[in-house]
């Protein structure tokens, strides 16, 4: 398949873009990565995602697909034969994977993102607690899911799957949050399953070359905060 048939419009720090990259890697799909410039947003972005004007946008055969989890499912649907599956085969397992991926997007990520901009110590503590509770739920989910099968490596079994991608893409930013808050969100006492899973996930062939380094994300975060700080 010609590389230019598949394009991914994105930005290196985005965990959502990372999801698309991991999915394409799992399927061994060649693609052209287009780094979005922002300020202003490119014509390509505005044309291919007029509704939200956000990255990532997958462009396949000149047709855009938007929203990271929708992109991941699309990639799974298109490159299905002879390649590893991203979503579980069983409908119930799929529902569980979708449930927790939605939870990450609707609850965990917004709480984590809000910590930096929290107004006052009380709100900051509340948000950190929310993230910790969310991680505890995911630890529990990990244990439940992996206790079912023989393979206890990933949410997806012996290979990374939909929920691994949805949640694992946030690991860089979770680490940045740990550094900036001074709070250990993952540890061997409370979330041992997730600690080991995270290590395996980041070392996975489909992930390690595209996962941004934590120190680079930290630098990026500091630049963002400077830009957003009131004058």
């Amino acid at each position, binding site marked *: 398949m010609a590389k230019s048939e598949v394009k991914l419009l994105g930005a290196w720090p985005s965990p959502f873009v990372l999801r698309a990259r991991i999915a394409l890697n799992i399927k061994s799909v060649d693609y052209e990565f287009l780094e979005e410039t922002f300020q202003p947003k490119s014509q390509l972005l505005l044309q291919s995602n007029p509704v939200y004007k956000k990255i990532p946008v997958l462009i396949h055969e000149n047709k855009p697909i938007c929203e990271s989890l929708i*992109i991941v499912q699309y990639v799974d649907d298109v490159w299905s034969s002879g390649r590893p599956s991203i979503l579980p085969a069983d409908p119930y397992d799929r529902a569980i994977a979708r449930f927790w991926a*939605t939870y990450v997007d609707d609850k965990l990520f917004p709480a984590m993102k809000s910590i930096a901009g929290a107004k006052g110590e009380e709100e900051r503590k509340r948000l950190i607690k929310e993230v910790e509770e969310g991680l505890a*739920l995911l630890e529990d989910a990990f244990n439940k899911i992996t206790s079912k099968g023989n393979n206890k490596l990933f949410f997806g079994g012996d290979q990374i799957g939909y929920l691994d991608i949805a949640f694992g893409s946030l690991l860089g930013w979770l680490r940045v949050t740990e550094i900036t808050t001074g709070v250990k969100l993952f540890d061997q006492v409370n979330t041992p399953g997730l600690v080991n899973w995270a290590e395996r996930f980041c070392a996975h062939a489909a992930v390690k070359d595209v996962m941004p380094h934590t120190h680079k994300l930290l630098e990026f975060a500091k630049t963002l905060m400077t830009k957003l700080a009131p004058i």
Partner: protein
Amino acid sequence: MENEVVLLDLWASMYGMRVRIALAEKGIKYEYIEEDIWNKSDLLLQMNPVHKKVPVLIHKGKPICESLIAVQYIDEVWNDRSPLLPSDPYQRSQARFWADYVDKKIYDLAKKVWARKGEEQEAGKKEFIEALQLLEAELGDKPFFGGDKLGFVDISLVTFYSWFYAVETIGNFSIESECPKFISWAKRCLQKESVANTLPNSERVYEFLLDAKKRLGIE
């Protein structure tokens, strides 16, 4: 077996209605359990401990939460009839995109109309109409978002129609005058048995909403 499929729901929930329409489209018999959301049952708290919300689809004793996840589950399990999602991957991605848009926008914008006053309410009305107009544009000339028949997006969206009377009355505006195409699409959907038998009476929904506002302390 009838109690193999159970639905924990609230009659007025536009999310619950989605699951009911999907079950009806597939001709699946199920046990309906009405939940008192002001006094949540042990069953609900057990089946949806994370969100404690309806609807919850329970199949062979196992819960599936989140309405669109439940609709997809129904489509995947009972995949021998009335497909709800397109088979083409690109069409499927577009159906997911627009159903997700409905989830991101419609409830919150409608709530801005029924829960706020003054300038905030006016802004809410404007944004709500704009969202419906965007959906009208996406519908285009097709009879349904799913093409010739009811599909995933239709199911995710049409249930909000039962709340329009309430939103219009509280907001003192007419949705039909701004979005006639949307209304004619909704009425087309209502010609389907699965939709007609599911959507509750609009005035009942209005009474429910007034009561909910009181309970939630919203003026």
